[in-house]
């Protein structure tokens, strides 16, 4: 009886171990083939955001090239408007997640165009900035100062995100890469 039970448990254990190794082996093969995932999967990871609202908030702070505006245009939107347009902290977190996809989208290109590495690194830096702003915002929320801190950090996040999307689109456009139309639709 004990022997039967032992061999049963052992079989389950070995099967689980074998499944684990095969799973990771196949994953390895997939990763070698598509180090940053397949194009469709990458696009599928992008969460839906309201593009018009993102552009509206971002363009009140920076221009299309990412340069800060000299005028005080940013005063046009009050904190309540920004909060509802972007969907609060949850909306900002969605942008944060999308940033990782944007970086991967450039790394995807870098497989064939090594020059894209510099842009990928720049985007990684931008993503880090966004992470920093959201971190500050969360700390402020914990201290009960979310409303005061939100406009300042949220606008920065949205502006950086917007510039990142423009950079990715410009890269695909400049090198005439396949998938540009789908990307424009997704971003």
């Amino acid at each position, binding site marked *: 009886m004990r022997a039967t039970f*032992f*061999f049963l*448990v*052992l079989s389950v254990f070995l099967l689980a*171990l074998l499944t684990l190794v095969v799973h*990771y082996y196949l*994953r390895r093969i997939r990763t070698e083939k598509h180090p940053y995932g397949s194009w469709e999967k990458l696009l599928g990871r992008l969460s839906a955001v309201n593009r018009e609202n993102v552009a509206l908030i971002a363009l009140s702070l920076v221009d299309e090239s990412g340069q800060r505006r000299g005028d005080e245009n940013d005063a046009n939107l009050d904190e309540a408007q920004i909060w509802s347009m972007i969907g609060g902290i949850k909306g900002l977190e969605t942008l944060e997640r999308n940033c990782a996809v944007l970086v991967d989208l450039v790394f995807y290109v870098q497989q064939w165009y090594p020059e894209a590495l*510099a842009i990928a690194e720049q985007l990684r830096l931008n993503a880090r900035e966004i992470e920093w702003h959201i971190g500050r915002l969360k700390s402020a929320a914990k201290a009960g100062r979310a409303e005061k801190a939100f406009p300042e950090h949220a606008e920065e996040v949205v502006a950086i995100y917007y510039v990142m999307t423009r950079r990715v689109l410009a890269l695909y456009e400049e090198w005439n890469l396949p998938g540009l139309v789908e990307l424009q639709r997704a971003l």
Partner: protein
Amino acid sequence: MHLTGIDLLFWAAGFVAHVVLLLVLWVRHRAATFPFFTILIASYVMRTVVLYFTALAGSKHAYLLAYLSLGSVDLTLQLCVVYEMASHAFRPLGNWAPDARIRLAWIVLASIAIAAGLTWLSAIPPVHTLLRTILIRGNFFSAVLMTELFAGMIALSVTIRLPWKTHAARIAQGLGFYSFVCVLIEAGHSYLGIDHNIRISADLTYFRMLTYMICAGYWIITLWLDAPVPKALPKEMEQHLLALQRQVEAYLQQLRTFRE
């Protein structure tokens, strides 16, 4: 102890395979990179000789005692090899990858717990001498532990995208495969006992030796060949990265000033 023709053949083949592997490690300068693995192989050469003469001239009890003592050394050295492989994979520049270290520690703890649990559960060997029971259960524990550790290392290296074609990875793959087969064989031994006079028990031992020969052959070939050279970063890209690094440093400086 009476040794059959096939016993002598496996013994001789094992000895030759280990000596060749040791020569490969030495001639191709792998010994300095993998000191524990080299010591393990050297210990196998010594073990083959010691066990051969003990089997030839000593009693069954003396042979079991020698086997058990050398088995403990083997387990200790195998654990050192696991550390060596993990160190090559997750500490290539001298510091442990922070995300890998904690996960690796969990893998080790979980592996020990599962191996101990399975050993406790294992079938009671039919021959109840204490020495044989320790031997069978010790072998089983060691095989399960090694299999889990190497499977865990494979999973972790895939997760954090470490290369698989280095010499360290080849050694780990060979040991992992051998340990996996050993789990099956030692489970069989725990049920049937280790008795060379029982045909099926002897066949299991031959199968283990054959598997080991295949692994030794795999190591001889892969360690003789050079590992694939990692792709070098083009000069232009290196410049880009350096410029970016300078930019990040400047930002950091600004942030520090802002804090002050």
